[in-house]
């Protein structure tokens, strides 16, 4: 044990500062439930009250900037849930809640109802993966259920027009907020199913409070989604909002735009798919053709084909013989013709030259040979001269110079 006089002795300010640091550094902002008492709306706009339960109470302060949005009927005895952080007021040595939001506890029952419904439908199997319908890969007709004048619809149309301008959008407008919303949503789902000619349904709503989105937590809506024969993609609220509809849906997207985004493939993507098929088909077709070629070669080697070829070859030889025989007879005929021709031509010749002799020409022969020139003839040659009407004989007595 150390000497008591040497221990550090704190001032009130110091201990309050330490307490403040310990509390404020270690307790994050949080929700606290309780009943309001000592309610005072100060002229400054700040609100002061205590939050209590059966056994204890804690001071609360809500600054003007936050106090604007408090529920209307706030006052003593009202059960509320407050959101804020614990702060220590050093001068007073007290701690209190710096409140940023107050919700009436009655409304918080929605959260309880949500949890209860979720558990019930989960146990019934409505969220089970095996009950989810497959999402079509290439939907061309997109059913949309949302409010007709909502930003959600414009977001969906924008995304679809950009990514997949070839799709058809079939809107079934529905109230997505208020007492009648759940009935209208159910009717819309039923009608699109009855109509039948859509590939997928987008069920969408923009962001809002749990009350705003409540229709999507209703049991009849959950059952209509479950019973739909057409796959349903939900896009309700913002990323952080989960509704019962999201759990039952065949696919949950965080927002309406995201629902449209996951529903369709872009044009480029699909064109890529088609191109791949085209390539695969061409490849397969070429391969089939090549295989056939290969098979043909095998057939060429086969016995049956060889036999066939043999038969052809045999026929061919026979044919050659026919041709040969044909040729021989042809040749014979030809030779005969040639002979005939030369015979006739000689006759033609012999009849013709006599006509020439009649015109005053004479043929001179020596020993039967025709003398065609002066130089062929010698002095004292004995020549036969043929006239057209007969022959005479004579002897050459002089070679006359020209």
């Amino acid at each position, binding site marked *: 044990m150390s000497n008591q006089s040497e221990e550090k002795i704190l001032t009130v300010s110091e201990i309050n500062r330490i307490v403040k640091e310990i509390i404020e550094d270690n307790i994050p902002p949080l929700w606290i439930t309780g009943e309001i008492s000592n309610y005072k709306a100060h002229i400054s706009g700040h609100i002061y009250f205590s939050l209590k339960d059966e056994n204890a109470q804690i001071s609360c302060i809500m600054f003007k900037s936050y106090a604007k949005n408090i529920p209307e009927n706030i006052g003593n005895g009202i059960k509320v849930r407050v959101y804020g952080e614990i702060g220590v007021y050093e001068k007073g040595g007290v701690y209190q809640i710096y409140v940023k939001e107050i919700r009436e506890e009655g409304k918080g029952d929605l959260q309880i109802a949500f949890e209860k419904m979720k558990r019930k439908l989960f146990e019934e199997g409505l969220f089970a993966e095996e009950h989810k319908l497959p999402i079509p890969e290439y939907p061309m007709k997109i059913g949309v259920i949302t409010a007709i004048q909502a930003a959600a619809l414009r977001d969906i149309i924008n995304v679809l027009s950009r990514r997949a301008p070839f*799709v058809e959008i079939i809107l079934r407008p529905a109230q997505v907020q208020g007492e009648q919303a759940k009935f209208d949503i159910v009717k819309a789902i039923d009608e699109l199913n009855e109509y039948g000619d859509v*590939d997928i349904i987008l069920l969408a709503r923009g962001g809002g409070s749990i009350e705003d989105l409540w229709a999507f937590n209703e049991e009849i809506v959950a059952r209509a989604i479950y019973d739909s024969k057409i796959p349903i993609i939900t896009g309700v609220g913002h990323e952080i909002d989960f509704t019962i509809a999201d759990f039952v849906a065949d696919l949950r997207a965080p927002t309406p735009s995201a629902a449209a985004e996951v529903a369709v493939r872009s*044009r480029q993507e699909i*064109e890529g798919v088609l191109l791949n*098929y085209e390539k695969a088909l061409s490849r*397969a077709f070429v*391969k*089939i053709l090549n*295989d056939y070629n290969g098979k043909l070669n095998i057939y060429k080697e086969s016995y049956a084909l060889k036999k066939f070829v043999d038969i052809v070859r045999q026929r061919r030889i026979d044919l050659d013989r026919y041709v040969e025989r044909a040729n021989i007879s042809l040749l014979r005929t030809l030779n005969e013709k040639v002979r005939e021709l030369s015979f006739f031509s000689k006759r033609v010749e012999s009849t013709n030259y006599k006509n020439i002799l009649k015109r005053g020409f004479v043929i001179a022969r020596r020993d039967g040979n025709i003398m065609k020139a002066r130089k062929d003839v010698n002095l004292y040659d004995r020549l036969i001269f043929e006239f057209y009407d007969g022959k005479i004989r004579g002897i050459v007595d002089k070679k006359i110079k020209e």
Partner: protein
Amino acid sequence: MDRELSFEEAIEELEEITNKMEKGEIPLEKSIELYEKAKKLIKFCEDKLSNVEKRIKELKKDENGNFYLKDIEEIDEESD
């Protein structure tokens, strides 16, 4: 009434034909037939993709409870 082939069905058929062709073992005539069929399917899909006229319709019911589609020209620029 003869229902028009859906895009999804066309792709499924393409997939089927491609598988058959890739497996081979089909008569040559059949493969030519399949190849022609596949080319037609691809053309069908491409035609669908290039059909980009904006089509936004509202599903309505007439007094007899029959469905009809009404063209929607513009969506009001009003936020929820």
